[in-house]
């Protein structure tokens, strides 16, 4: 930042943003809960030792880290030793897919190997799987999804081949909120000796996760999606699962993820899991009611609007819509100027009028899919916030449609 900016005091500052601000993008990230911040405080200040060091400073950090492993393991019905701290959900997905598929291929003596994923997956999974094809010679099947963005277990069963080494399917879709039948999908994989990874990043704020009930070998989490800090994630690796290092270095995290561990982040992750475990049952009930008020209100007030994703089997705080003849990004900006922070559900990367691939995979027509909008509620969301959205959104949609008609 240039120094002149520091002297910007000429009274020109205008707050053109409306003063009311409503955050409804909790699927993108959540605020840190006060409990979590308090739990992290020692590791960020006085307890700064490197957890790998032998001295007393290191021991303090190692003890905090051990406890974090134990707490996270407990929260997932896993053992402490099966928990690996990473830099976030994306890294966890990378480690699971690369580390699992490469190790399984080698163990089974396969020349290529086959990986299964789905068209509705997050970029962290999709891009990784595609690179495994381009750079590592794997064959890849991207499963189709139904009109709600859900993978049918029979589709998975039919796609498994003798050389299939790994399948990666998300637990809850970030863009449309639908829940996948992970336990059933995992059971199929186990029966066919296929490693199964699930990206469960969207889930912990709303449901307890049990790696045994889910039949998973790998499971990825990201603390900032459930009121923890950014820059820290979890990868659960079932004991005995083939796994090889993706990046190399020291023997941290029982030799599965080299690099000095982010102890404060690990402690914060454990604290966040504890926090959501305490809050989520009541919050899920409360937010589901608010979400349904929102959905019903939008469908009633906005012509040519539809819900995307499953109507009931979806994340409690997740409402997603498609609007015919609306540019989703323009709508997002129009709402932001009114102080409402939401998302289109997928990042637009080129201004290309290309609809979201996930919505397209769900069979939603292009003119509708271009107008995707995701409104994700969180623990602080109030009925007032939803009323404000219901008052503002129909006006914004109408304006975006008028603008498109006036200047095309």
């Amino acid at each position: 930042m240039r120094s002149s900016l520091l002297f910007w005091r000429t009274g020109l500052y205008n707050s053109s943003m409306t003063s009311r601000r409503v955050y409804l993008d909790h699927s993108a990230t959540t605020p840190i809960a006060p409990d979590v911040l308090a739990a992290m405080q020692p590791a960020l200040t006085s307890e700064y030792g490197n957890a790998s060091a032998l001295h007393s400073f290191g021991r303090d950090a190692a003890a905090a880290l051990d406890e974090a492993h134990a707490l996270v393991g407990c929260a997932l019905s896993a053992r402490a030793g099966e928990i690996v701290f990473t830099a976030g959900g994306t890294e966890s997905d990378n480690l699971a897919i690369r580390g699992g598929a490469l190790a399984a291929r080698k163990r089974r003596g396969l020349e290529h190997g086959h990986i299964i994923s789905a068209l509705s997956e997050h970029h962290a999974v999709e891009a990784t799987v595609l690179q495994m094809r381009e750079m590592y010679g794997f064959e890849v099947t991207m499963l189709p999804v139904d009109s709600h963005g859900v993978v049918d277990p029979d589709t998975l069963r039919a796609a498994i081949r003798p050389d299939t080494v790994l399948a990666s399917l998300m637990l809850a879709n970030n863009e449309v909120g639908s829940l996948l039948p992970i336990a059933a999908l995992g059971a199929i994989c186990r029966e066919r000796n296929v490693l199964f990874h699930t990206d469960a990043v969207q889930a912990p704020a709303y449901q307890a996760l049990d790696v045994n009930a889910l039949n998973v070998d790998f499971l990825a989490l990201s603390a900032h999606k459930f009121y923890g800090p950014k820059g820290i994630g979890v990868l659960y690796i079932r004991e005995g699962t083939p796994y090889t290092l993706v990046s190399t270095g020291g023997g941290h995290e029982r030799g599965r993820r080299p690099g000095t561990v982010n102890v404060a982040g690990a402690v914060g992750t454990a604290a966040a899991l504890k926090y959501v475990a305490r809050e989520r049952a009541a919050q899920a009930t409360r937010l589901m009611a608010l979400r349904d008020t929102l959905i019903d209100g939008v469908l009633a007030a906005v012509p040519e609007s539809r819900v995307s994703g499953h109507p009931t089997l979806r994340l409690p705080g997740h409402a997603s819509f498609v609007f015919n003849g609306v540019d989703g990004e323009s709508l997002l900006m129009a709402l932001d100027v009114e102080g409402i922070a939401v998302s289109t559900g997928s990042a637009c990367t080129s201004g290309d009028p290309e609809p979201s691939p996930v919505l397209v995979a769900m069979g939603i027509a292009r003119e509708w899919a271009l107008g995707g909008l995701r409104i994700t509620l969180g623990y602080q969301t109030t009925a007032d916030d939803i009323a404000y959205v219901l008052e503002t959104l129909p006006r914004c949609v109408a304006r975006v449609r008028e603008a498109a008609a006036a200047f095309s």
Partner: protein
Amino acid sequence: MTQQKTRVVVAMSGGVDSSVAAALLVEQGYDVVGIMLRLWAEEGDDGLGQPNSNRCCAPEAVADARAIAKMLGIPFYDIHAEQVFKQRVVDTWVNAYADATTPNPCFNCNRSIRFGFLMQRALALGASYMATGHYARVIAPVAGAASPVFKLRKGADAHKDQSYVLHVLGQKDLARAMFPCGGYVKADVRELARRFNLPTAERAESQDLCFLTQGDYRGFLARQMPEVAKPGPIVTAAGVEIGQHDGLPFYTVGQRRGLKLHAQSTDAEPLYVLKLDAARNALVVGTLAALGASAAFVGAMHYCDDLAPSAPLRCTAKIRYKAKEAAGVLTPLPNGSAEFVFDEPQRDITPGQGLVCYLGDVVVGGGVISRKVKG
């Protein structure tokens, strides 16, 4: 309920003009929103395996614009427009070279990108106006006028005036356009930037086409259209071959330098490009006397009033961005075309460039020159 302030979207580039435009509007009490468009640049490799950025929206420029928006306390959006820019501006520009013309991409950019794609987003945001850093002015109709008409007027700075590239605007555009720098000369704008403490006050002017990362339009065209940029003969008006050209897109009417003529031809009178002949892939050259033409024909003439004059109009016209205005008579023709007859023959009337007509410093309209007319 407090009085709502009028919302204005400013097209920001991180450069000095659009930054000052934004600051002026904030100072004037508007509810200002900044938008930066990411535009297309030729695929290339920046050394890190990433494509090049369009020069006017490189990561540093985005950071500058964002920092300025933050200083001004205005919302800022950086939105992707690569595909729409590529289709409507770059491809059209390249195709015009294939038609052996010398096009100006800024016309389509102003029409389709700024006053199309961006204006649409501005209105969607609830803006009443869209502002840019252009050096031009809009004259609003007098209150109570029987037929209210917005006029596009030259910028106060004769050297920086950009009304030429804005001639494509019509009434619905002008009614919503603001050019806050238009009343200033460039030196004043730089001074304002300093007064506002804007970090871009000292930034150098950019001149070349924004999507050419290396500023090398010849290389760009050769890569974009290898089938058109083929060597061919240089011929006289009589058809005598006197040299070889590197590809028609690399030449423009009136050009003298860079003509590879056979040795025996070089001692004669200087020769200029008269015409690009696509059918024969030939570059037609001739003497200065042969270069002049008395009239230009415009296939699709646009009038800023959205209405053609009912009778031939004595006015002035510019045939290139930096050309001097010349006097003559504009005659609107049926089917939307027009002819401009100059009082004095003009050299360098170039198909593909714009002919823009003025009454004093007010833009009447303009269009792309289809051909010159010898008189």
